């Protein structure tokens, strides 16, 4: 099967190369059959990659260790869910997942745009297949997932224990979905630039893909943060590590893009911005994919050692140079007449958010790549730690939150006093009041940035509440529905708008969590004996008793902690540190069980106001004399046993050694138990972190808002066909045949009719060639001439 898998990859590469060429040829020569052939190549690539991925997954699920990737990343003891996920924890498998997802989304967009924009679509197909070919080539030439070995090991290396966490397994598919979805708007932008057709069509079609990419990337980033917080024993959720930044940068850029295109749709402005933003987002997505697998940030030299480095750099360089070149070439078509009238207008706010987001991307990019830049310039790698980010990111984030509140309520073209009074009073009051209350009634004044963030968050939440209220009121004025129903219908009919507002609200909540947990955290690093306690932020935390457990996978040592405040019991926390056996015999027959890789099992009590978090760092030195003794005894026993069973065939030898292994395991269990029976002082890291839960809650709200904005309105096309075929149309109740376009459109805009019903009715009118349209036109013309 591995052979078939490899063949599928090679076929995929050939199909991608052929299809890319066919689409290009078809586009340039105008010969549709070649474009169609190119499109079919995309579908064929999707089918081939699906089959290849299925073969790989099957190998993982049945623990087929003849596949080198399976042997390196899975084991028979790995739980089934993680066996499936182990496929993408490897370099090779993850590349295959990437190209598989790319082929799926490419197929989807081509199906959705079957008949539209044939010129742009053919160039876009060529670009998408270009990406497909590139990644397939990576798997064919550099990182073969189907590599096999003639001598499969009896047991695999297993998954890194850190990765045995659900969110860590879903995190890569989410990120890859995000990255691959971004290639679609990128490809269509290239197509639009090449053909010079720069009206908003290419945006309208790919807007949803950009939004979906944004959603998946965001989910991936948050999952990573959650994993870091609950699994890695350092107590934080974001370290500004290069691999984290690699996913954040395209997400920020895509955020700017999905906002900026609204201005192009409304007023035809910011075309250069939009083209540049989408090209940048796609490039950053590829850059992000490259960063996490090339070792480039370890060092320029490490980059050279990785075989993937050079091709990726060439691809990224091509995307950057090509993108800039295309935008410059088409600058005339991208130019617009409309100008920003006033700096106090919604257009200006959108432009400002573009600038702020791009500035954030630039800062993150710079600080992430600075070690490389400095190494290239001065020969010394200079690293800039997370504290360097904050003076730049925090003010930018504050401005961004403010804009997310101002943007939805400020007037188009220019703000007026009336607009200010009407729209800004309530939110400004909310923000101001929050600021005042926090200044006076809490210790928040000690952290001005957090304070400002809280006030701005209140401002934003107030604007969203106000918008929802106003919309519900407007709707009820026409439909007379009850509030909950009116709200549901309002959101349903205006998904982009209210989905977006919900996202803003979620962002405000999330940043409240970030501000609270970064600025007001209390942490203590203490050594405690059983019975001793420490005080952190008013909580008394007592080390009740030690725990120890021994299993085939690992040894765990930990403690039970009792948390109380003002005499009242708050919670009980359990935390352990697991020690995985090392394979290195030189560490000692027993010693290798105590000196291998270790990881923490965090003790966490999450709450709405604060989280109490702890890890334990047991020092096993007190056991060392006994372990060394054990090493000597068992070392000698092993040597003795080897002499005796050395001549026996494998199965018999294993049987003969079994009692020795049992005794060894017994010794290990007894040693481990000493941690409980003869306890000593161990090191605990205790953290009380306010408002952390709001980060996750905010993220869920953002995801919900994103889903609402993404949710498709039912397509018109099938209905149109039916209305043609159904014969004479029946006028929907309440509409006079004579009302015409103006009234029909007026009704839709009042939200009284479902968007579908309105356009259905209109379609019915058109198909019957009714007078309505002409009357509407005539009446409108009459009005205009006045």
């Amino acid at each position, binding site marked *: 099967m591995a052979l078939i898998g490899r063949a599928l990859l090679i076929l995929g590469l050939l199909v991608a190369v052929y299809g890319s060429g066919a689409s290009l040829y078809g586009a340039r020569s105008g010969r549709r059959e070649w474009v169609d052939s190119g499109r079919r190549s995309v579908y064929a690539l999707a089918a081939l990659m699906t089959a290849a991925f299925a073969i790989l997954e099957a190998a993982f699920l049945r623990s087929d260790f003849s596949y080198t990737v399976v042997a390196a990343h899975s084991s028979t003891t790995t739980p089934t869910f993680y066996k499936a996920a182990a496929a993408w924890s490897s370099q090779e498998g993850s590349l295959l997942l990437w190209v598989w997802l790319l082929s799926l989304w490419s197929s989807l967009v081509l199906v959705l745009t079957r008949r539209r924009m044939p010129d742009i679509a053919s160039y876009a197909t060529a670009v998408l297949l270009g990406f497909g070919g590139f990644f397939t080539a990576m798997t064919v030439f550099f990182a073969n997932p189907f590599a096999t070995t003639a001598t499969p090991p009896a047991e695999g290396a297993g998954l890194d224990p850190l990765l045995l966490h659900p969110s860590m397994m879903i995190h890569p598919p989410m990120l890859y979905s995000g990255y691959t979805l971004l290639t679609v708007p990128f490809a269509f932008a290239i197509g639009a630039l090449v053909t010079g057709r720069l009206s908003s069509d290419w945006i309208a079609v790919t807007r949803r893909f950009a939004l979906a990419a944004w959603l998946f990337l965001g989910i991936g980033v948050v999952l990573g943060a959650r994993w870091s917080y609950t699994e890695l024993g350092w107590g934080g959720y974001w370290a500004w590590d290069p691999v984290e930044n690699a996913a954040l940068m395209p997400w920020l850029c895509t955020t700017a893009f999905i906002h900026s295109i609204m201005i192009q749709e409304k007023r035809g402005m910011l075309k250069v911005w939009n083209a540049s933003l989408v090209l940048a987002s796609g490039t950053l997505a590829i850059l992000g994919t490259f960063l996490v697998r090339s*070792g480039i940030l370890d060092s320029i030299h490490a980059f050279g050692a990785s075989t993937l480095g050079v091709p990726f750099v060439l691809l990224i360089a091509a995307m950057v140079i090509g993108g800039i070149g295309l935008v410059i070439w088409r600058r005339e078509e991208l130019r617009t007449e409309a100008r920003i009238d006033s700096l106090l207008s919604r257009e200006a706010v959108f432009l400002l958010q573009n600038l702020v987001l791009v500035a954030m991307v630039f800062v993150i990019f710079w600080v992430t790549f600075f070690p490389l830049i400095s190494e290239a310039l001065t020969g010394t790698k*200079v690293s800039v730690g997370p504290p360097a980010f904050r*003076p730049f990111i925090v003010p930018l984030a504050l401005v961004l939150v403010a804009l997310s509140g101002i943007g939805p309520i400020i007037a188009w073209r220019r703000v007026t006093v009336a607009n200010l009074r009407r729209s800004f009073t309530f939110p400004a009051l909310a923000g101001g009041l929050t600021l005042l209350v926090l200044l006076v009634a809490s210790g928040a004044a000690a952290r001005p940035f957090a304070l400002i963030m809280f006030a701005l968050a209140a401002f934003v939440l107030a604007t969203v509440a106000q918008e929802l209220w106003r919309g519900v009121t407007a709707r009820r004025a026409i439909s007379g529905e009850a509030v909950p129903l009116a709200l549901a219908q309002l959101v349903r009919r205006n998904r982009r708008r209210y989905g977006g507002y919900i996202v803003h609200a979620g962002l405000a909540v999330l940043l409240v969590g970030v501000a609270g947990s970064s600025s007001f955290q209390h942490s203590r690093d203490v050594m405690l004996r059983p019975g001793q306690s420490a005080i952190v932020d008013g909580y008394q935390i007592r080390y009740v008793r030690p725990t120890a457990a021994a299993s085939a996978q690992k040894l765990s040592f930990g403690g039970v902690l009792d948390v109380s405040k003002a005499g009242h019991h708050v919670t009980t926390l359990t935390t352990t540190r697991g020690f995985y056996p090392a394979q290195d015999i030189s560490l000692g027959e027993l010693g290798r069980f105590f000196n291998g890789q270790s990881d923490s099992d965090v003790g966490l009590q999450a709450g709405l106001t604060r989280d109490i978090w702890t890890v334990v760092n047991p020092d096993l030195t007190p056991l060392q004399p006994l372990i060394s003794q054990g090493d000597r005894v068992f070392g000698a026993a092993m040597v003795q046993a080897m002499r005796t069973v050395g001549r026996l065939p494998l199965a018999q030898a294993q049987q003969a050694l079994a009692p020795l292994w049992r005794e060894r395991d017994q010794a290990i269990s007894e040693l481990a138990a000493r941690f409980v029976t003869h306890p000593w002082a161990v090191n605990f890291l205790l953290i009380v972190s306010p408002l952390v839960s709001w980060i996750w809650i905010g993220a869920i709200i953002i995801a919900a808002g994103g889903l609402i904005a993404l949710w498709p309105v039912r397509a018109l096309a099938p209905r149109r066909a039916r209305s043609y075929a159904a014969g004479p149309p029946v006028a929907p109740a309440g509409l006079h045949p004579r009302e015409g376009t103006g009234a029909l459109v007026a009704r839709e805009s009042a939200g009284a009719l479902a968007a579908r019903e309105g356009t259905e009715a209109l379609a019915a009118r058109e198909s019957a060639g009714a007078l309505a349209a002409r009357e509407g036109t005539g009446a409108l013309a009459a009005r205009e001439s006045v």
Partner: protein
Amino acid sequence: MDPSRKRAIRLTVALTAALLLASALVYTSFAAGRDEVTASQLLKRARPGQSYVLAGTVLAGSVRHAGDSLLFRVRDPKLKVSVPVSYSGVVPDPFREGRGVLVTVQEQGDTFIGEQNSLTTKCPSKYQAASASY
């Protein structure tokens, strides 16, 4: 003020702000940045009593526990050399052989003592450090 002049002013302001941001960034990076040294550089220029931020990957097979200290060797990304480090303090979870690490060290005798709690590891990535062993 006619519109084109307004635009020119706005453009100038925006570019100036961008330039300021860029300069602030460059300045901070060089000022607040800390020199990282590789194993080979450390061996060449280390002076006792001076702190250095050592960057590299953990050499395969070199991790040991000795009392409450963690002993490991950090290898150079390019050359086949490594330096021994004796570190006490919090060990990050992702720490293992083959991972990229940063640790602040001072020379002491023929080994380097890692500063308490200064050990950080890079987030796990797909990059298989071929440099985990020689």
